[in-house]
Structures are given as structure tokens and as C-alpha cells.
């Protein structure tokens, strides 16, 4: 009985979790059994190439689409049937927000603010001024970057416990991008907000994320702390004469024209690299986050 209660409590504590999520469009599989859970207060950067399934995963995790298989939970509730309480604690900014184009920025924030019990109207007004957005201009007349900023203000003003951002910096200039990242880091650090954001700008991840999850062709290939990547993953190069030897399990493998082999390998829980790394002629190179991304995605 106690074990069941603990289990339930644990599930409730997880702000966002996906189990075996699979989805596809027009016969093409986009997600293949993804498992992912966010610890409270963590900032998880979801990284992957275009079409890797990042937006679909986020939408399925928030109950914005019905997955073909698997389930998602938000604050312990099924994502597809969230209660008002769970929704009030959650904010989501889609890629290229286009909603309510017939309202002005002020009207949109006023309208949505009425639904959120912890809405910070002063923050919304202050940030509109700070980001130099004309409050009485129709959203349809704002540039894509300005619209994205209005939507970010909308999301942050609701003071969410879980903030989900899908490519939030895609339309932002470098200054606005840095301001956004600072705000996200501040929220996570001071208020303990859990953040999930997808991007392919690796420097953004290094700046704010505490963890990264790598989605490739609908599968979650790796998940680790940002600082751990250099210690946990490396590129193992085997010359042609060794490439026929027993090759260790790897995240990616590429054979070069001269017959040599490049592999992305992971060290085990004791920090040991695969045995092939100690063969004479083999070379092990530490990988930065960007190199790791390119090696796996290429």
C-alpha cells in the first residue's frame, strides 16, 4: 500500500513525462517509442535535426495531439485530459506563434491573463515596454520576432511551474535571444520552474540547459547532463586495419573512404571506454556538444 502511495506521489511530482510515445503522419513514423521524464526544477534542452520529431514530441507530451501509441502525463495527469489546475501551472510557446492575430498585444495579454490565477500583469506591461513592443498594434502587424516575444511574455506572465518552449529563439535577434535565455535561467534558478525547450542552436543549450536529450529520427538517442557530455562521449577512430576487429556498441558509426571507421562511443558507469579504444593505432577524441550533435546527426 505504502509502495503504491510512494509511486503515485512520485508520478505526481514529475512535471512532464512520456512513456512509449509513437506517432506518425501519412504513413511516416515520426516518433518511435519515446520515454522521457523531467525532474522538477530541471532545464532540459531537446536537440535534434529538422524533422527529428521535436515539435511532435512536445505536442504529444502536452496533449495537443493524440499519439498512435504510448501516453504522456503532466503533473501526474493524463496530458489529453488535463484539469484546470494543471493547465494553470503550465505554459507553452509554439514555434512561430500565430494565435489571435486580430487582437492587439495589450488585448491578447489582457484576455488571456483573466484565465490564469497567478497572472503577473505588471511583468507583462514592463516587459512589453522593455522589449519595445507597441502594445496597441495588432498582432498581425508585428514582425515574427515581435510576435514570438509577445508569446513569450504571455507564457512567462502566467508564472508557470512548467515552461515548454518549442524553438523559442528561432525568430529572435541575438540580443532578444540572450534576454530570453537569461529570463529562463532566472525562472529556473529562483522559482524552480521546470523548463523543456527544443532548439538546434547548441550554444543556447550550453548557456541554460542542465540536461540535454538528443532526438534522432524519432528516437531518443541519448540523455545526459550538459557538463557530462565531454566525459561520457567521445569519437573513436579505428584505422582500416582495425576496423574489421570487434566493434563496440556505438551511437553512430561512419566508414571513411580509406576504410577507417569513426564511432561515437559512451563510457560505462565506471568511466571506462570500450576496449577497442586501447588498441594500437586507435584514437579517442573528446567531443564538445556541437561536435557530438554533428557526429550523431550527420
Amino acid at each position, binding site marked *: 500500500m505504502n509502495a503504491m502511495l510512494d509511486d503515485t506521489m512520485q508520478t505526481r511530482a514529475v512535471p512532464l513525462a512520456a512513456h512509449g510515445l509513437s506517432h506518425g503522419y501519412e504513413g511516416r513514423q515520426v516518433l518511435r517509442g519515446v520515454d522521457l521524464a523531467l525532474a522538477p526544477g530541471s532545464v532540459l534542452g531537446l536537440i535534434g535535426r529538422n524533422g527529428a520529431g521535436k515539435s511532435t514530441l512536445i505536442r504529444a507530451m502536452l496533449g*495537443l*495531439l493524440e499519439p498512435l501509441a504510448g501516453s504522456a502525463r503532466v503533473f501526474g495527469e493524463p496530458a489529453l485530459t*488535463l484539469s484546470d489546475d494543471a493547465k494553470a501551472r503550465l505554459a507553452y510557446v509554439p514555434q512561430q506563434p500565430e*494565435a489571435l*492575430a486580430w487582437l492587439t498585444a495589450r488585448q491578447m495579454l489582457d484576455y488571456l491573463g483573466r*484565465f490564469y490565477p497567478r497572472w503577473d500583469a505588471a511583468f507583462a506591461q514592463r516587459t512589453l515596454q522593455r522589449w519595445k513592443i507597441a502594445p496597441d498594434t*495588432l498582432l498581425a502587424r508585428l514582425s515574427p520576432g515581435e510576435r514570438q516575444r509577445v508569446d513569450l511574455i504571455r507564457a512567462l506572465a502566467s508564472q508557470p511551474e512548467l515552461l515548454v518552449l518549442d524553438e523559442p529563439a528561432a525568430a529572435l535577434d541575438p540580443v532578444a535571444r540572450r534576454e530570453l535565455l537569461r529570463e529562463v535561467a532566472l525562472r529556473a534558478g529562483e522559482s524552480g520552474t521546470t523548463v523543456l525547450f527544443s532548439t538546434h542552436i547548441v550554444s543556447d543549450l550550453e548557456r541554460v540547459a542542465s540536461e540535454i536529450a538528443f532526438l534522432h529520427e524519432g528516437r531518443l538517442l541519448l540523455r545526459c547532463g550538459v557538463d557530462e557530455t565531454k566525459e561520457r562521449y567521445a569519437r573513436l577512430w579505428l584505422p582500416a586495419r582495425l576496423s574489421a576487429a570487434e566493434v563496440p556498441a556505438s551511437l553512430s558509426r561512419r566508414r571513411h573512404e580509406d576504410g577507417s571507421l569513426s564511432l561515437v562511443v559512451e563510457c560505462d558507469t565506471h568511466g571506462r571506454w570500450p576496449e577497442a579504444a586501447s588498441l594500437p593505432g586507435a584514437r579517442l577524441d573528446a567531443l564538445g556538444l556541437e561536435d557530438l550533435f554533428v557526429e550523431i546527426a550527420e
Partner: protein
Amino acid sequence: MNPGRLLMLPWMALSTMPRRVVAGLACAAVVLAVVACVLSFRPETAWALHAMHALVLFDILGWATVLSQSLLLAREAHQLRLPRLEREACASLCLYAVATVALPALLLNGLVGGTAATAMVELAFGAGIGMAYAALPPQWSLLIVLVPMASTGLAHGLALPGPGHRGFLAWAAPGTAALWLVLGWHCRRLIRDERATRGNRMPLLLRLRSALWYGRGGDGGGETRLVGQRSRWMQPGADLRGCGPGHPVRSLRLALGGWSMPQTPASRVRQAGLAVAALLFGALILLLSSSSPTDYASILSASGGGALLLFYLATTGPLLVITHMKTLQRRWNRPNAELPLLALLPGLGDAARRRRALLDAALRPTLGVQAVVLLAIALLAVHLRLAGHDLALLLLGQLAGMGMTCASGMAVMGGAWTQPWRATALMILGYLLINAGNTLASPLFDDHPGLHGPAATVVLAVLWASFLVPLLRLGLRGWRGLRRRPHPFLAN
């Protein structure tokens, strides 16, 4: 320059689907015209006149849809710094001017007699109307399109001789030349000056480019662009009073947008003014298209005005379905817009309450207006002493329009709009049937007694059944889909 390539250029500038549709429609029109000619052959028929009218119509449509694409190509070639392609596109326009104006005029002159100059002026005028529709700013396009409709009345009012009469060329030739001079000047600006076609001045040719190339769904920002380009006084002003968690229906109406969202009183007055202006404009065109003072008197009399208003109401009621359907389709086709916002918005209650509120917000405004129109039609029909079967036909059309509102709305919201072509064809069939019924029942067109017989009733009944049964099925599929969905804000 290769003439074959010049002839192919406007077709190459169209994307595959519109090219196929236009080519298919053109072939079908030619086949239908030939069949009609064969079936209705009489030696005494004025073939030259009919052929000329058909060619003018062909020119209007051809220049408005396909041939104007060369202009778009020339503009893009200019922007991409491809002078040869730009020259080819301009040469293609000139070649088509010869092929669709000069050549048919000479052929017609040679085959059936008449004056080549008159034929050339008429064809050049038709081509000019088509080109103007595509290339001029939309406000001008609208007026240009109405010119042929109003021409009879204008010619009568201004005492201008018609095509078969002496003196026609004296006014028509300079008029057509002036039209082409204006078009030439405007086309040059369209190609070379990007700023000249921004905002409200953007011609239909450019507005439809994205839709033609990328399809309706691909042009996700189309509505946003449209709202952004609309003049401030035409923009509906949202009224936020009464929106909030305690008022889900009003809140959802605001979030769904369109004409039925809560608006400030000033905005409502502006929108009503626009509707009245449209009504007056329609009446003006009808007056202009009448050819004699007795027609004017008949239209302006109490019964004539009543009949006109009755017909206007009967055709306008079902038209609301189109705007209603388009609004909902836009909402449910865009996964990054209002749907995620509404799906995650607290304060709208549980799934069942949200579904009820959504149905109320999405359907009631349109159904309400349709019900008012239905009542007005009934009262007007009684006032005009319409026969029982005519009144029944008019009311059946309005009720069918309300059915279309419900079925299309539920199909979109319930994810049952899975075969858009089939559903759209059903809606077009419905609209045609309703308007056919309106025409039969309206006192404005009371000169077809043969269509009131038992055979016509049977044909009408079969046609109505072939529309209502699939409509009912579509609505039921939508309703089941909506009930099955865990929440109603899932994109299609």
C-alpha cells in the same frame, strides 16, 4: 526567342495542380460548347455573334487565370536579375495578345464575315478585362469585373452604339486602347517597383500566388497577412468585456475570431455599414444592367423592391456557411495558432463543458443570423403573397443552409473533414441547389412555368435527397468524432 517556349511560359509559371485544373476546365468548356452547338444547330442562328461572345469570354478567363502568370514571371525574373527571362515573359504576353486577339478576329472575319476591326476591339476589351482583374489592385479589379454587367445599362444611358451598330468603333476603340495603356503602365510598375504593390494595392495575382503554389494549407500565414493588410476602419474591433473563465462561450467566440466575435458597438456599426453598402452596390449594378426605364420603375416599385430583397436574403443566408466554414477550417488546420492556446487554457471547464461551449460559440452566431434571415424571408413571402410551394422551396433552402452550417462545423471540429474535395463538392452542390430553388421560387424570375410541373418536382426531390443524405452522414461523423476526442482542440 523560341515561339514554342514563349507559348509555354505562362503554363510553366503555374504550379501543377492549378495547371491541370485550368487545362481540364478549358477542355471541358470547349467540349460543352461544341456539344451545345451541335445539339442546338439551326441554319438561321447568328453564329458569328455567338462565336464572338464565346471568344470574348474565353479571353476574359484566359487572361485572368493563365496568361497573366507571365507578368508574375517577369516580375520575379526582374527581382532575380534574369533579364533574358524577363524579356521572354514580356514577349510571351505580346505573342498571346496576337494569338488571342488579332488571330481569332481575322479568322472569324474570314470564316463568317463581319468587321475584323470590331471583332478585334471586342476581343482586346475582353482580354483587357481579364488582365485588369488579375493585375490591378483588388478595389479596381472589382469595378472592372462589373463593367460587362453594367455595360448594357451604361450604353443605354449614355446612348452609345453597340457592337453591331455604326459608331461602335468610334468610342470602343479609344476606350479599349486607354484600358490597355493604363494596364501597360501598371504592369510595368508591377514588374519593376515592388513598393507599388504592397498592402492594399497588392493585386489578386500576387495575393493568390502562395495559394496556387503551396495550396491552402501551406499558406498558414495567409489569414494573418490578410488581417495585417486590412484597413484600420475595416478591421473588426474586439470587445473584451465579459470574457473570462466565468463566460466560456463569449471567451471562445473571441478566440475563434471572424465576424461573430464580440465586437465594440462602433465596430458593429462599421460592419453593418459595410453590409448595407454591399446591398446598395448590388442594387446599383442591377439598375445599371437594366436596359429600359420600365425596368428601373419595376425594380424600384414596392413589389419589385420586395422581390429583390427576398432574392438577396435567400441567396445571402446560405453564403454565411462559406465564411463560417472557412473560419473554422483555418482554426483547426493550424497547429501553432489558437488550438494549443485553447487546449491549455484553464477556466473553460471539463471536456464535456468545453465541447458544449465550443459548439455554442462556433455554431450559434451563424445559426442565429440564418434564423433571422429565414424569418424575414417568411414574412416577406407572405407580404408578397407567394404561392405555398414557392414559400416551401425558399424555406427549404434556408433550412438546408442551417444544416450545412451544423454539418460542416461539426465535421471540421470533429476531424471528419478528411476528404476536403468530397466535402467541398457536397457544399457546392448544396449551394447550387439552394440557389436553383431560390430562382424558381423568386417572383423576380417568374417566366419559367415548365419548371413547376411534377417532373421538375421529382427531379428536385432526387437532387435534394442526393445532397441531404450525405450531408447528414457528414454531420453525424463529425459529431461522433467530436465526442470521441479527449478534448475538442485537437488539430486536424
